[in-house]
């Protein structure tokens, strides 16, 4: 893996860290990667949204994707979720190549990947508990698949949903309609839905962009906590560098569809930020930055 001819940025980073300690270049993470991108590119018509991105993501990592609007962050995430397919290169999830997936295999992949969205994407007219139960839909088999069409879930599934809701501190909202909740609460329901789904990877597309900083902090805390507890891998696109610095183990920086940074938050100095954003990004305002700093 380490001797791949392709430009594998993650491997380059590990070998750099290793040579600093003057040890032979061995992989720091013994586990095989959960996601590996190999020259993945995506072209929409004439628009090259993503160009030859190669990287590997290891189990349990919290990875932030940063970059300006239109840099390809969401496209990359949508490729990982297989909501869209790369036009060249390949993306592997564990030992499954995502490019050729369809039908049952694609549904299985989606079950293994939990999605968090900027707009929460809960079913607004369903009750909170039903939204969490939606997370169980990938796990129902046999005659249950017909019973759940009438919202008849098994006792086990209902227990799981209640547990997940309790975990996110929203048990008392179970019977409310999802659209009666505030934005922060809706995003927590979305996380509860993912917990019920029991995925291996969480992909979060701007999970806190429509929330104020205090709610955003709570959501990021929750994400990191559940990821650590279940050894889940998280890949999140984040608008604000400060969030990425505070929460991520690794940061991928995209500029105009190219991967221009792949390293730890400590490696992300001013020069690297200018390389990614073209200028130094404005920090969150004083109070908000303080709120974040309190966590670091």
């Amino acid at each position: 893996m380490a001797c791949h001819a392709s430009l594998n940025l993650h491997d380059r980073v590990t070998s750099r860290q290793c040579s600093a300690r003057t040890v032979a270049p061995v992989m720091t993470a013994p586990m095989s990667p959960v996601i590996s991108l190999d020259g993945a590119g995506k072209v929409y018509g004439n628009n090259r949204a993503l160009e030859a991105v190669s990287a590997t993501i290891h189990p349990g990592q919290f990875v932030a994707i940063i970059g300006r609007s239109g840099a390809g962050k969401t496209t990359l995430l949508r490729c990982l979720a297989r909501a869209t397919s790369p036009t060249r290169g390949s993306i592997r999830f564990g030992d499954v190549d995502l490019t050729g997936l369809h039908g049952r295999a694609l549904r299985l992949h989606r079950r293994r990947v939990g999605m968090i969205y900027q707009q929460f994407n809960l079913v607004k007219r369903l009750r909170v508990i039903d939204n969490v139960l939606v997370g169980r839909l990938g796990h129902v088999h046999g005659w249950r698949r017909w019973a759940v069409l009438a919202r008849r879930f098994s006792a086990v599934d209902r227990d799981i949903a209640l547990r997940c809701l309790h975990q996110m501190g929203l048990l008392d909202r179970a019977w409310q309609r999802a659209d009666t909740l505030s934005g922060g609460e809706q995003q927590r329901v979305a996380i509860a839905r993912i917990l019920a789904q029991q995925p291996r990877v969480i992909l979060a597309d701007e999970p806190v962009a429509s929330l104020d900083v205090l709610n955003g902090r709570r959501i990021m805390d929750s994400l990191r906590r559940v990821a650590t507890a279940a050894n889940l891998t998280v890949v999140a696109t984040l608008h604000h560098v400060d969030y990425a610095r505070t929460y991520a183990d690794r940061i991928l920086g995209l500029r105009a569809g190219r991967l221009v940074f792949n390293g730890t938050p400590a490696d992300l100095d001013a020069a690297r930020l200018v390389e990614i954003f073209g200028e130094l990004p404005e920090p969150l305002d004083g109070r908000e930055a303080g709120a974040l700093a309190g966590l670091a």
Partner: protein
Amino acid sequence: MSVLSGALLGVDAGPAPAAPPRDSHFGRNFMTTLALALVFGTAARVIELRPLELVRDAGNIGVFLRGYLHPSFAHLGEYAWQCVVTVCIALWGTLLAVLISVPLGLLGARNLAPHRAVYFAARRAMDVLRAVNEFVFALMFVTAVGLGPFAGMLALGIHTGGVLGKLLSETIESIDPGQVEGVAAVGAGRLHVIAFGVVPQVLPNFLSYILLRFESDIRSASVIGMVGGGGIGFYLWDTIRAFNDREAATVILLIVLMVMAVDVVSSRIRRLAI
């Protein structure tokens, strides 16, 4: 005026600027008026529009009116029963329409259809059902299953099925795709995505459409008896054709009362549904 000319806070004083020039629409407006006058003038000749005859024959209308103002209640019980039959035709017609419209509406929605060909076929099928009037369907079903309310109910159901199907498919096309994506992203199958992501979003509107079409089906059912489809319509046709004005007046009165009652009940339920 004097208040305004004194001081517009924050706006530069001095003479008001001239408005920028704009295109004249006189030619376009003139041509539009001319074209409309021509179209309606021609149409008036085609339909033999003669408003003066309405005035000249006012006496005849008076004769009719005398009969209609003295309804006869000799056969009231029979007519009332036929009104019940009419409501039943509309009830089952609407139910049949819902059963037809759900699969057609799901397949005829661009964002749900499994394939473009399926979408196209479902759309055209609904077009055909809507294009053919329920009376034409009634005439066809009368020859197939015989005179009576069953033929009328089939005709209503099939025509309304096309209408409801189109309304349903357009409601589905206007739903929030994010909520559907959220359900599909957990690895749910197609039917589950529809049941959890689509149905909750379209149900209130669809229920409202069903009730609106039921009101409209009551009006259609009240005349479908004229072509042998059962219900009060046969008696309407029979009494008017026999110049039995006093009986016809009773029938019309009952139809008006029935339609009003159904509209009131239905709109109450509609407000509850949303």
